[in-house]
């Protein structure tokens, strides 16, 4: 029997998280622009010194996590909008989540080894 079921009882946290992570990314982007204007990208040494700063490490980590979290909600929304098969949706949700967690670790490793 195929009865339609709705009422998962979640959604607010994802919606809110998407907005908050968006703000984090916007702030980080502005800081990066300011840093570029201030000469942090003028040479490899300057860039390394900039990225070694504890506060920038903290922010860049937040940025990567925000980016992946934001992408998770957005990509999941696309699967929910356009795919009708629950099995396919579940598969793609899991794949998206695994890929994003992997990307987050990889991105942080790249940025922190600078």
């Amino acid at each position, binding site marked *: 029997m195929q009865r*339609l079921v*709705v*009422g*998962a*009882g*979640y*959604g*607010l*946290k*994802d*919606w*809110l998280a998407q907005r908050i992570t968006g703000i984090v990314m916007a702030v980080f982007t502005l800081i990066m622009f300011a840093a570029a204007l201030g000469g942090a990208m003028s040479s490899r040494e300057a860039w390394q010194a900039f990225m070694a700063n504890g506060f920038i490490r903290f922010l860049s980590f937040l940025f990567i996590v925000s980016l992946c979290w934001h992408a998770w909600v957005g990509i999941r*929304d696309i699967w*929910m*909008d*356009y795919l009708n098969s629950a099995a396919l949706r579940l598969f793609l949700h899991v794949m998206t989540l695994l890929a994003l967690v992997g990307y987050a670790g990889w991105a942080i490793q790249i940025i922190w080894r600078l």
Partner: protein
Amino acid sequence: MTNANRTVQFKIYRYDPDQDAKPYMQDISVELESTDRKLLDAMVKLKAQDDSISFRRSCREGVCGSDAMNINGKNGLACLTAMDSFPEGKPIVLRPLPGLPVIRDLIVDMTQFFKQYNSIKPYLINNDPPPERERLQSPEDREELNGLYECILCACCSTACPSFWWNPDKFVGPAGLLAAYRFIADTRDQATNERLDNLEDPYRLFRCHTIMNCVDVCPKGLNPTKAIGKIKEMMVRRAV
């Protein structure tokens, strides 16, 4: 284009499931008099000319919401659309509201739309015994209902919403959510928590991605997106 008699071209979506294998667009022209000011007037003339053309209509003044249709690509009410708002020399293209099953010509099956409307319990829930005269509100509390209660359920907004096109069985849609907020905002209603619980769902409420097609087409000038935003705001206030 306002005074003398004139001929106006139409392109109308035609489909009679008993006769047609598939829908087609019919070119038809009609002679209008200066008193035929609204699109609905022209359509009544069209109907007199070819009585097989089917569409819903009733009050002819934007109150009943029957004659909602897709006019030159945008949803609206035929009775509120002025004939002189159309560019001269181009045919007026009329199609049924998008996303709902077509019963015949411009008549759509609104069952899904009303199912969603019913799902938000569009009536006051108050378990206190009714007072002798009426349940009173302060003018400020009553003010909050302006822009919400005026909805005529014509379905222009919900059928302009891509989220409603893809998930009409799960997403409440702008019209239903506007009505939901009308009761959430009502200080006389006692089921606020249940109403918010009912909507806190990735499909029922959060399929709205705030593209504001609903605001763009509402013939009554209402703002479902704003109401949806207020529902989300109340959920945040309840949660933090």
